[in-house]
């Protein structure tokens, strides 16, 4: 009996350990850092909303690469999509002292007070990818206007179908900043093209499996579709699978946004009609450059918008790494 209990305890211990291991990368700055007496290399902190897709990984890699080039140190904090967690991570880092911080916000509203507090403590704050609701609170912003990306994608789709036909929209989580901005961009183009009719419009929460299921159901509805326009590539690839399974790929074109590696491969094969790059690496490089310049007392542009790039079969090779 006791031996069995012991085994069980061991198992539980192992589970707890694996839980801790899962959390380890999310832990804030290494405890060893403040103990170091000399301050020769500059220290920066990057706060990511999460680290669970190709976009966030590419962005943080770019920041790290630029920091290495500038001879600076950067620690990455993962908020796991939790705004409260990101706020406390920022507060902890600010209290420990740092030369500059870069934030990819979980929420454009919730982190404003933490940003203000950091700036009041004399620490330069660069916001990346999504502008916060009070831009004056931060020192600089590097990113994209989601609306422009949506408009670029929709413009290409409308052109390809000759300015008329039925289309379906796959949206991000309703109410998320990406969804709102990209939908605005879609609307700006659709409003100019009265012959383009949106017959289906629903969220698939950025996921491939939901988009696949949704598209399968739409294809059953008996309405003729000319294009499916998705707000990210994951959903576009789900829609593409449903279209190909139904052997409708010659009739329905599918569009995505983000330029993830699997989407780029699909564009190259001529399966996905187009995707849009939000120049993720450029965003990361520029954000780190801005933070470094600010820490040296230099002035930088308060808003630096990175251009979106439309990727089709013709230019896809430049983007495949």
């Amino acid at each position, binding site marked *: 009996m006791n031996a069995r209990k012991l085994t069980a305890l061991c198992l539980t211990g192992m589970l707890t350990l694996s839980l801790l291991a*899962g959390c380890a990368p999310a832990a804030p700055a290494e405890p060893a850092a403040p103990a170091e007496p000399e301050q020769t290399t500059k220290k920066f902190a990057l706060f990511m909303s999460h680290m669970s897709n190709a976009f966030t990984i590419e962005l943080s890699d770019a920041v790290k690469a630029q920091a290495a080039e500038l001879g600076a140190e950067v620690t990455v904090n993962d908020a796991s999509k939790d705004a409260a967690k990101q706020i406390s991570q920022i507060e902890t880092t600010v209290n420990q002292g740092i030369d500059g911080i870069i934030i990819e916000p979980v929420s454009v509203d919730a982190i404003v007070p933490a940003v203000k507090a950091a700036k009041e403590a004399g620490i330069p704050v660069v916001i990346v990818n999504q502008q916060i609701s009070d831009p004056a609170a931060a020192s600089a912003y590097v990113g994209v206007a989601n609306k422009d990306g949506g408009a670029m994608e929709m413009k290409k789709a409308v052109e390809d179908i000759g300015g008329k036909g039925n289309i379906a929209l796959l949206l991000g989580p309703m109410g998320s900043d990406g969804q709102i901005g990209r939908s605005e961009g879609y609307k700006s183009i659709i409003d100019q093209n009265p012959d383009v009719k949106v017959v289906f419009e629903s969220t698939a929460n950025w996921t491939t499996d939901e988009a696949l299921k949704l598209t399968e*159901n739409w294809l059953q509805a008996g309405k003729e579709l000319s294009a499916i326009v998705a707000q990210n590539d994951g959903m576009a690839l789900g829609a593409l699978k449903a279209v190909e399974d139904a052997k409708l790929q010659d009739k329905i074109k599918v569009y995505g946004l983000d330029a993830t590696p699997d989407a780029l491969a699909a564009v190259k094969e001529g399966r996905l009609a187009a995707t849009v790059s939000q120049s993720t690496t450029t965003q990361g490089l520029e954000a780190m450059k801005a933070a470094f310049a600010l820490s040296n007392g230099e002035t930088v542009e308060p808003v630096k918008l990175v251009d979106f790039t439309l990727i089709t079969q013709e230019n896809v090779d430049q983007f495949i790494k």
Partner: protein
Amino acid sequence: MEERITQKASPLKGNIRELGILIAFILIVAFLMMLSPAAFARPSNLVNIVKQASINGILACGMMYVIISGGIDLSVGSTAALAGVMAAHYAHPGEYPLIVPFLMALAVGALVGLLNGAGVAYGEIPPFIITLGTMTAVRGVSLIASGGAPVFGVSKAFEHVASGFLGGIPLLAVYFAVIVAVCAFILTKTVFGRRVYTIGGNETAAQVSGIDVRHVKLMVYTLSGVLAGFAGLLLASRTVSGSPTAGTGYELDAIAAVIIGGVSMAGGAGKWYGTVIGALMIAVIGNGLDILGVSSNYQLVIKGAIIVLAVLIDIKSKARRD
């Protein structure tokens, strides 16, 4: 599929609990047929519904065992994601034979299931707690194993596992039917199946009567894990990628299917065909609302209401007969 349900469900004298849910299911189907007769009732759409019910249905089969035994398994969605990621890793064209990703997915599922089972049976950790722990940890492991991004570039043979057909029937539906048949057989015709009910009904009595309760529990969670691993393989094959964030919330759909199907949350009672109807019902609702073009915001409200309503009809119809 349909045929088997009506055949088995017809001697309903002793099985009134499932009758209410069958009525609710027929009502919903009739209602959707009335609203969009052209699109909904088409044979191709009916096949589509069974296909879409398959992955959740397979998870629900495992969940059914766990709930009948008096437990719960929250980890199946995360387990499916990890199994999908691991399968996709070994499914690149020309690297390994198809059996490798296949066994990999099942092994991942079995391992997580064993861990859950050992925790519940030998660690005496409440099932809700241990599976909440594995749900969180396994999601983390799948993010680590995939580097945070979907694993893509799988072979045609791997893609065929879920998108293929067998004599006009989607393979997904075939797997679902086979798994239902096996699970139903074990549950109703074997000593092990009866023990699952006994344990869920009264654990102390089961112990006293000489049943190795711990062993049965270990087996039940392992079965749920293996089925979650298989569901993850199918999910990865269906989406042609192993996504670490796939299957989020699938545990809740599986639990919903089991509960809608009339299986008692308290354990000890429930029928396999109730679970099948529950899984079909969830797929039918989603499919019908998508075809009607109902906004996703309203869909959430309608789905929630239908789940509660279906169970309410079940409870009321049962109370009347009692």
